[in-house]
C-alpha cells in the first residue's frame, strides 16, 4: 500500500463524511421546530461539513498548496462560525423569533426585553396603535401579547 492509495482513501472518507453531515444539517434546518435549533444545525454544517469537504477535496488534489489552502479555510471556518452563531442567536432572541412549543426552559426570560414576533417585523411606528412611550422606558410591551410565553402553566 503506497501513499497514493492511502491519500485517496482518506480523501474519499472525508468527502463522504462531510457530505453526509452537510445533508443532515440541511435536513435539520428544514425540519427543526425553532429558529435556535435550526441555527444549531447550520453551525454543525459549517464547521464539520464544509471543513471535512475542504480537507477531503484538498487531499484529492494532493498538492501542498491545495492542502494549505484547505487548512486556512478550516481555520477561518472554525474561528468565525461560532461568533456568527452567537450573534445570530442573540439577534433571533431579541428580535422575537418564536420559541418552539416543547421548549423546556428559557434562561433569558426576564433578563432581556423580548418583543412579540408579529409586532416588530417591518411595521413602521407611525401606524402602530400606540406610538412612543410616555415615560421613556423600554418600549416593549411586557404585559400584553408580547410577553414571553409562560412555561409553568
Amino acid at each position, binding site marked *: 500500500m503506497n501513499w497514493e492509495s492511502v491519500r485517496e482513501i482518506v480523501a474519499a472518507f472525508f*468527502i463522504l463524511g462531510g457530505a453526509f453531515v452537510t445533508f443532515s444539517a440541511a435536513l435539520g*434546518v*428544514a425540519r427543526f421546530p425553532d429558529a435556535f435549533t435550526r441555527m444549531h444545525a447550520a453551525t454543525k*454544517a*459549517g464547521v464539520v461539513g464544509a471543513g471535512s469537504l475542504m480537507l477531503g477535496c484538498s487531499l484529492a488534489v494532493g498538492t501542498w498548496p491545495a492542502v494549505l*489552502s484547505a487548512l486556512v479555510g478550516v481555520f477561518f471556518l472554525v474561528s468565525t462560525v461560532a461568533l456568527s452563531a452567537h450573534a445570530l442567536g442573540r439577534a433571533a432572541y431579541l428580535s422575537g423569533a418564536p420559541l418552539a412549543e416543547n421548549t423546556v426552559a428559557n434562561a433569558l426570560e426576564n433578563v432581556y426585553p423580548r418583543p412579540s414576533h408579529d409586532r416588530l*417585523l417591518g411595521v413602521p411606528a407611525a401606524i402602530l396603535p400606540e406610538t412612543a412611550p410616555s415615560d421613556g422606558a423600554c418600549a416593549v410591551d411586557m404585559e400584553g401579547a408580547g410577553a414571553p410565553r409562560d412555561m409553568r402553566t
Partner: protein
Amino acid sequence: MNIVMWATIIAALLLIPAVALVAWRMLAGPSSADRVIATDMLGLLGISLASLATAYTGYTAYLDIGVGVALISFLGAVAFASLLERGQLLPGTDRRAHQPDGEQ
C-alpha cells in the same frame, strides 16, 4: 473510475437536495432570523460545492474561492444580526428610539 471520483459524485448527489431544503427554509421561515440562518447555510453549501468542484477538476482556485466566501458570509451574518437586534430598516421607524442611552 477511482474511489475519489465515486465519492465526489455521491457527495454532489447528497448536496443537491440539501440546497433545495435550505432554500425552502429561507422562503418559508416564519421569522427573519430563520431566513438569515438559511442564507448563511447556503453560503456554506456553496463552499462545499466549490470544494467538490476542485476535487473534480483539479484546479486549486475553487478552494480559495471557498475561503473568500466563508469570510464574506461571516461578515454578512454578523451585519444581519446587528440589523435584527436594532429592529429598524429606516431611521425614524424604530419603536425603541425614545429610550435613554445605553439601555436595551
